């Protein structure tokens, strides 16, 4: 049954970015920072990521960095 579960090595960066940046569980809670919605945009010849609104402070007490 496991013979087919080897992932094709041809998986592209697009496939990874489409999931890792866009999907996956997002939780809200105190003391958490997280990347907000990321749009894949096109700039020049390369896919770049919008840096606008990269981060949202999720609900709860303001994020206090340990710096």
């Amino acid at each position: 049954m496991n013979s087919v579960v080897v992932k094709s090595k041809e998986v592209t960066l697009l496939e990874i970015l489409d999931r890792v940046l866009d999907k996956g569980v997002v939780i809200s809670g105190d003391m958490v920072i997280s990347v907000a919605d990321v749009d894949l945009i096109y700039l020049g010849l390369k896919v770049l990521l919008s840096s606008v609104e990269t981060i949202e402070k999720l609900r709860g007490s303001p994020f206090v960095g340990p710096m």
Partner: protein
Amino acid sequence: MAENGQLVYLYCVVDSEPTIKQVEDSENNLYSICHNGLYAVVREVEQQEFGEEGLKKNMADFEWVKTKAGLHERIIEQVMSNISVIPFKFSTLFNTDESLKAMLEQYGQEFKAILRRLAHKQEWGLKIYCNLEKLKGSFLSNQEKILEIEDEIKSSSVGKGYFLKKKKDQLIERMLNDKINECSQENFELLKELSFEARINRLLPKEVTEREDDMVLNSAFLVDRDEVDDFQNMVDTLKVHYESKGFFIDCTGPWPPYNFCGLSNRKGQNE
């Protein structure tokens, strides 16, 4: 335990003790945090790199994102090689192990329910691309309606010909849309039959895919491990049928179940 100047980066949550093998480029600092029967696979990262300001800056650096996103994926894949995982979104960060435990406390029951649902299942992705010219060529030559209009154009005045040509173009466009919908729907429905859950995601533009052909379906399926063979056979059958008509069917997996871990009624899952 995160020290001053460090944050805790959460990759995934599992419900039995994960075998932590260090992944290349991960600086050998992966570990797990246990709370109430759940384990969070985490790594300490620098506040400077992943803190609010650093992250903002780094997210604009494509090379950085590429490397870190790849690492994120590899770490989760390593963990999921023998257990079900709840994958978290890129750069989910906590100040301390304690704040992460508080989150596990808050969402514990939901996570456990999600993991029960995901047991023995895999996510597979299916993207379909269409080469419009090739698709046109595959069916237009024997379309009576089109041939009729073409005949009519030949025997028409310039003005009438112009409108007939417009009519022809609209007709072709409609036919193309029908063919594309037919292909997307048939693929999605047949594979959904073999899946536990299925979802359709937004299409990515050419600027992002960097392909010549257009994406016409972006979908994900949660498949029982025992059904994966059937699922793949179906994909192969569909490929044989559609790839000669200008469609390219791209099936990838198994993926961490990024698309099937939605928390009930909470902000988080796109769409």
